[in-house]
Structure formats: C-alpha cells, structure tokens
C-alpha cells in the first residue's frame, strides 16, 4: 500500500490500513479502494478523525464494470471544509442473480447521501442497507430497469403508463 505522497492516504493507511485494498493518486486525486464490508467503519473514521475531518460528502455515484468482478464500484468524494482537502473512496459491490448488489447506506453519517443514494438505486439498481426511504429519485416508479447499467440499451422503449387515478 502506497501513500503516493499524500498526507491523507498516509494517515488512512496508518490508522485503517487493514481495511484498504489499494490506493492511488492519479491526476492528483487521492483515492482509496476499501473492502465493502468495512465501508461504514472507515467512513466514520474519516469523518470523525480530527486530522482528516471529512465533514462533507460531496458526491456519491457508482460505476458499472460489466465484465469485471465485482461488477459495481461505489465512488464517494469527500471534502473537508476545515482542511480544504479531498479524498475519493471506492468500494467494490458484487452483483449476482441470487444476491443482488447491496452496500451499506451512509445516510446516518451524512444526510446528503440520502438523495444521491436514491439516484444510484434509480440508475444502477444498487440497494442500500439502512437507507430510510429507498425509492427512485429522477425516474418514475413504473420505469423498468436501471438505465445507467451498461447492459441497458440506449434505444430501449418503456411501456406506456396510464393515468394513476
């Protein structure tokens, strides 16, 4: 595990190194790849540690690597208002027919995760364990499929939804 000259990664490796799979700092963005089962714990450490103090969850999204295992990758962008530094945290999420993709929700740590996790559920179909109100955000409830998955064709048509009442 390398710290890539980044003080953030150095501290993270020293304190929670056992939960990390790899690190890199491509284009100057410090990045840590976590084991998914320890996501909540490491995120809590990142938020509460006084030297890191990542008090803002700026962005949350997922990437669909169709042919890789694990198929999905959660991507979190953290920002510390006190120290003005950023960190990208990633965690792989496996997807199988009998065990659909699921990852821990971060709503209890940062309320800003609420809507963004709903968007990821909407677009990628990843479930968030512990999310208070997991439903579609941008699309409508009758929408079939999750459009940002790589196996969702761009031209696919959706069934017509009739009036609801």
């Amino acid at each position: 595990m390398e710290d890539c000259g980044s003080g953030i990664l150095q501290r993270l490796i020293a304190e929670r190194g056992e939960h990390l799979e790899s690190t890199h700092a491509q284009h100057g963005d410090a990045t840590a790849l976590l084991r998914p089962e320890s996501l909540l714990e490491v995120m809590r450490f990142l938020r509460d540690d006084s030297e890191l103090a990542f008090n803002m969850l700026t962005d949350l999204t997922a990437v669909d690597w169709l042919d890789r295992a694990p198929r999905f990758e959660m991507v979190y962008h953290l920002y510390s208002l006190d120290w003005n530094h950023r960190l990208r945290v990633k965690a792989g999420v496996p997807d199988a027919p009998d065990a659909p993709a699921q990852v821990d929700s971060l709503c209890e740590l940062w309320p800003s995760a609420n809507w963004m996790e709903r968007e990821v559920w909407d677009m990628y179909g990843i479930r968030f364990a512990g999310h208070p109100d997991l439903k579609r955000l941008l699309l409508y409830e009758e929408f079939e499929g999750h459009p940002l998955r790589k196996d969702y064709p761009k031209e696919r048509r959706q069934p017509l939804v009739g009036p609801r009442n």
Partner: protein
Amino acid sequence: MSEAAQRLAGDSRGDLHSEHQVLNMGPSHPATHGTVKFLIELDGENIVSLEVFVGYLHRGFEKECESGSWYQAIPYTDRLNYNSAILCNIGYCMAVEKLLGIALPERCDWLRVLAGELSRLGDHLTRCGAACLELQAMTPFLYGIEARELTWDLQEELCGARVTSNYIRIGGVKHDMPGDFPGKCRAGIAKIRALLADFDKVVTQNRIFVDRLRGTGIISREDCIRYAVTGPVARASGIALDMRKDEPYLAYDRVDFDIPIGEVGDNYDRYLVCVEEMHQSLRIIEQCLVALSRMGPAPVNVADPRVRWPAKDGVFNRMEELIQQFKAVTEGPMVPAGECYQAIESANGELGFYLVSDGTAVPYKVRCRPPSLINLAPLPLMVRGAMLADLIPTFDFINMIGGECDR
C-alpha cells in the same frame, strides 16, 4: 422544536383543525421557476412536512454522453444549467483536460474566466429577478431580465449563441473574442450597473420584500455542511466556501475579488449574497478585459494534436492536415484510461464532473455532480413549520434549475 412546530403540535392535539391537509404543488406551478412537485402536508397554513419530487426534466445526459465521443458531450453540457451554460462547458472541459494532462494557454484561461463570469451574472440576475416576480414584484423582474438580456447579448457576441453557447473546447475555446468586444462589454457593464442600482432601489430596503425574506428559510451552518450544500446558499449561512478561492483554477488566482458571506442563512442573506456576487462578477469581467487587451494576439487553444483540430486553411489545401482532420472528427480524442474529479464554482455551487475513461474515444462514465439537486435536498428542513408562502422565496433562492437538477 421551533415555536411554529410547537404551536402545530398543540393544534393537532385539540379537537379543531385536527386533520392535516395534503396539497400537491406543481410540477408546473406559476410560482416556482423550475419543474418540481411538492407534496405538502399542511396544518392550516403551516407546513408540517414536505416531500420533493424531482426528475421531470430527466433526459439521460449521463447515458447520452456514454455513446458519443468526448467532444460531442460539450453541447449537451450547455443544457445542464441553461442559465449559466458556459460554466457547465468549463467544468466538463476542465475535467477532460485533467484526464489528458493538458495545460492551457494563458489567454484561454482569461477568456474562460470572462465568459464564465458573464454566465454567472446572468444566472444570479435570473435568480433574483424571478424571485421578485414570484413574490409579486413585476418591475424588478423586468429590470433583472433586461440586465440578463444584456449579458446574453454579450455572450452572443462572444460565442455565437445567447443561451446554448457551446463556446468552450477541450484544450481551449472555440475562437478568440471579437475585436470590438471589449468596448461593447464595457458599455454593457455600465448599463447592467445602472439596472442593478434601480433593482436595488426598488427592493432591497422595501419593507414588503424584506418582511417576506427576513427570517424565512433559515438553514444553519452545520446543516449546510451535513447536507453538502455549496454555493450562495452555503455562503449566506456563513461558510466561506468558494472553489474560486479554495482551489483556484484558470486565472482566478490572478484576479482580485471578494466573496460575500452572510450571517443568518435566511432568504434575505441569500439575496444580499447574490447581489454582491453580481458586483464582484462585474469587477472580475473588467479585470479580464484589461488583462486580455494587454496580452495582444496569442493562441487560445493548446497545440496538442490529440485535441486540437488542424487549422482550416491547411485542411482546405494540404493532404496531411486533411487526413488529420478526418481522424480527429471520426475518432475524437483518445483519452488515457483513468479517472478524475474536477470541481468548479458554478452559479449554484460546486459543479463537479467525475469522469472514467477506459482508454477509448468514448467516455466510460460521465458523472455530473449537480449543485441544484444537492442544494434542494435540505428544503424540507428549511421550510418545516413555516408558512406555505415562505416556501416560494426559499425555493427561489436555492435556484433549482431543472436541466441540471434532473439531467
């Protein structure tokens, strides 16, 4: 529990008014500038709970980007925040440039700052003007929109289109500013300043306007941080957060400007922050004009053949350039595999682009972090217990732009 909420609790225990009323507001409501639906639970005229439904303008921006080449996504970014299209252009192009490792020529930096600030000015004018309109003040709206028209006229001179500018290119801008642009721009700035002064006289100290805004829609500093709220909303709550100062990009480290910070975090603070930011934008534009005219002719695009299309007269007359042009258009830039996140300060807050490339000419993933969507999330918190009418200014000053919020 706030005073209003306590009063509510008391009301709902009594025999009278014990049933809450559910009100659907939107998706197309005359008092909201933005296509959004609110499901409001009302006790009398007070809001007990509120649920926001967004997505009415969802067009699949991110999916669409994954099917074209890198440069073909630039016109789509115009349609994100259509009030400040150039800022969205800048955000996307800077993210691609970060992946490619391109350093921009100096003149391009200044041109981007100039175009971006014009765009920000237009966005803030729309926000303040439309907020006045929705509070039934028609005249200041007209002044604000007239000033916005002036910024759009300048954008048309510079980019060729008023709204969907498509001005920024990967590694530069479409073309340099016209020779007579500085003069027109200075004349435009003078007119905009006069209109801002009129605007200020009509509303800033007007008692009706102040009573509607002061003390409504308060969000605390801590809540802003927890909800990752950025932009004027966060600054009105006292957070000195501005990408232009914190992580200076382009030429922002070479211009002199201040960022206004509010104290209370109510709508009135947001209004004042926006007005002050408009004056700062005008200052930045003037400094850009000075810097650009001092510079003299200089390239506005990088000479990198990966992203720069060959000069046109070469394409017309010589075979090598023609072949290069064919390759550049049909293939587009090959971006090395990797990922990056680039954030800029857009008119609404931190506009970030997270790009993943798998080494081909087509983006693997384009994620846009929409500031309007994330700033809208704490809206239920901001209006809980308030009167229904307070929802209007609160929603207006968040400035949710459908195109960017729903993508």
